């Protein structure tokens, strides 16, 4: 009796759930059949609807993202996949040369892209060109400084890297877990004009000064961990990050902010390349053209996942007109002291791979530091 009752119910239930589950995706699969599928290897957020939605609609294209966390992770993913797996690749400037050396990216035609719209500083970005051949198109950048909780530390407090050893932040200093930005900042703090091009003596000093901070450290965090630990006040000051993290939190109402200290700040730079062996070269090119257009640039500046400065002067104009609040928040207002002036004053240095030491040395020191 009970058994008889139960069987149809179960079947019914299965049919119902199956129906509900199948309906939505089938629609999207059918729609996808006629469109171009463009795969993108990028940091989180670059293929989310707020950025690619408009482009997808206009060009009948669908992005399939693979999000990575860090340049080495990216290289690993490309190395382990067949050529042509990724159509467009977003990379940090340090890694473009590695991509190029390994033959992972296509040469580009500089005439395809609107470099004339860009500030002169970004028309021939180092590492993106090999001689006169273009391999990668700069799309956005940002500054790294002292990220701090404004309830605990004022901008004045954070105006020097010295704040990392302040007694108020003992056990509350967080590190973004990557040696390049952290050690670069420590090198700036030690007064090195080119923080990544330092001799052995200077490198020893940087190591010593870094090691002295170990007791202050509350943790080493990945991207996500950095977000949550700054937001809930678990960490009150952070090394190795910038507005790309604090900006998101600020917009969410958290009392955090990045200050570029007197000793100077670092610059991260992202650019798009086209993967070697892609079957969608045309569409990939079209995408890069779109994201570096003034409208695409203005959108990119206010990307939901993480905001950034943009290299296109025309993009600045569009942003100032369409989204003045964000332009102001990021110090991109035209006609007053802004982010470009900071670069021109020499307060900002490019983040790059160590010049005189091997990457291995820096990395080994970082793991010693973590383990100490």
């Amino acid at each position, binding site marked *: 009796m009970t058994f008889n009752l139960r069987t149809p119910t179960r079947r019914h239930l299965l049919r119902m759930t199956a129906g509900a589950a199948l309906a939505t995706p089938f629609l999207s699969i059918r729609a996808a059949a006629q469109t171009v599928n463009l795969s993108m290897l990028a940091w989180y957020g670059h293929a989310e609807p707020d950025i690619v939605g408009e482009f997808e609609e206009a060009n009948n294209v669908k992005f399939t993202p693979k999000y990575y966390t860090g340049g080495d992770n990216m290289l690993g993913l490309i190395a382990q996949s067949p050529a042509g797996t990724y159509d467009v690749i977003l990379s940090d400037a340090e890694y473009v040369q590695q991509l190029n050396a390994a033959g992972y990216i296509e040469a580009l035609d500089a005439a395809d892209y609107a470099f004339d719209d860009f500030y002169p500083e970004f028309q021939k970005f180092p590492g993106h060109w090999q001689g006169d051949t273009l391999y990668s198109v700069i799309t956005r950048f940002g500054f790294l400084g002292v990220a701090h909780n404004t309830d605990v530390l004022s901008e004045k407090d954070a105006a020097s890297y010295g704040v990392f050893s302040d007694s108020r932040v003992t056990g509350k200093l967080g590190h973004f877990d*990557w040696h390049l930005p952290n050690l670069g900042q420590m090198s700036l703090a030690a007064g090195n004009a080119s923080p990544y091009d330092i001799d052995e003596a200077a490198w020893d000093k940087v190591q010593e000064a870094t090691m002295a901070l170990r007791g202050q450290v509350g*943790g080493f965090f990945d991207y996500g961990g950095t977000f949550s630990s700054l937001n809930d006040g*678990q960490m009150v000051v952070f090394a190795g990050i910038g507005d790309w993290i604090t900006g998101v939190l600020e917009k969410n109402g958290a009392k955090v902010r990045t200050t570029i200290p007197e000793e100077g700040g670092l610059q991260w730079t992202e650019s798009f390349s086209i993967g070697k062996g892609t079957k969608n070269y045309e569409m990939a090119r079209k995408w890069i053209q779109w994201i570096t257009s003034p409208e695409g640039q203005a959108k990119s500046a206010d990307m939901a996942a993480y905001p950034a400065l943009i290299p296109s002067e025309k993009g600045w104009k569009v942003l100032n007109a369409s989204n003045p609040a964000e332009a102001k928040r990021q110090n991109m207002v035209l006609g007053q002291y802004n982010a470009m002036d900071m670069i021109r004053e020499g307060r900002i240095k490019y983040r790059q791979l160590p010049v005189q030491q091997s990457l291995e040395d820096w990395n080994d020191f970082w793991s010693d530091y973590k*383990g100490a």
Partner: protein
Amino acid sequence: MTIRRPRLFPLVLSLPLLLWQLAFFLFPLVFLVAISFWTVRNFQMTPDLDFGNWERILTRNTFWDAYARTAMLATASAVLTSLIAFPAAYAISFKLSDRVKQWLIFVLIIPFFTSYLVRIYALQVFLSDAGIINALLGMLGIGPFLMLNTTFGTLVGMVTLCLPLVILLQIFSLNFVNRDLIEAAHNLRCGRLRTVFLVIVPSARVGLVIAALFAFILSFGDFVSPLYLGGGNPPTLSIMITDITKSGQQWPRAAVVALMMIGTLLTVAFAAITFAYKERGK
């Protein structure tokens, strides 16, 4: 009844598993051994026979510190989980009706169907300075305590991971304990605690040891708790592996750390199983 020629039946049953594990388990591991002798230049791996990776890893204090730390954490987690689990498993196995027992076992299986990542993410909110536990303690006028990004946090995560499994394994081994033995012990006026330690624990030893072994294995290799609850501070071996691959594509060195971990786990597992099945009475 000796088998003269290979017959189809046993082969059909036994070979698929063997072939699958050979092809997709043993080969990758052997390949890992090979990789550990490769070299990396400019972010590119090239096949080689170079002992530099082994030398580099094994001569560094950072590795051995992390090694000792990871082993201690895993041991602490195994012991702690076993101690917390045992009274519960004991009570479930001996004190509850079959119906309740069945339901509790069902309840304990549920966590296996929930994402460990999701649970750890939620635990962050519980353990943080302004988190739920500190808020509750604050109402009682104590705290706040620093729990997130500490070894304590890591251990909480590991126990969360292992506890359901350990309780279940303990219940199953306790269920096999002969009830007559206990009856006999009681008839001989053996006290409650003494019965537990002199009769029940020894006869369930195999299961108890294996449960603890599983907790050790899971904790030893876990990277989620140390990273998201321990703040990666200081790092464990699993974190070290991801760190090494994160900078300069040093997969060969990561392979060295990995092989050291496998060696350790095999040794521990072998020792634990030998101990578990050791003849009783001596």
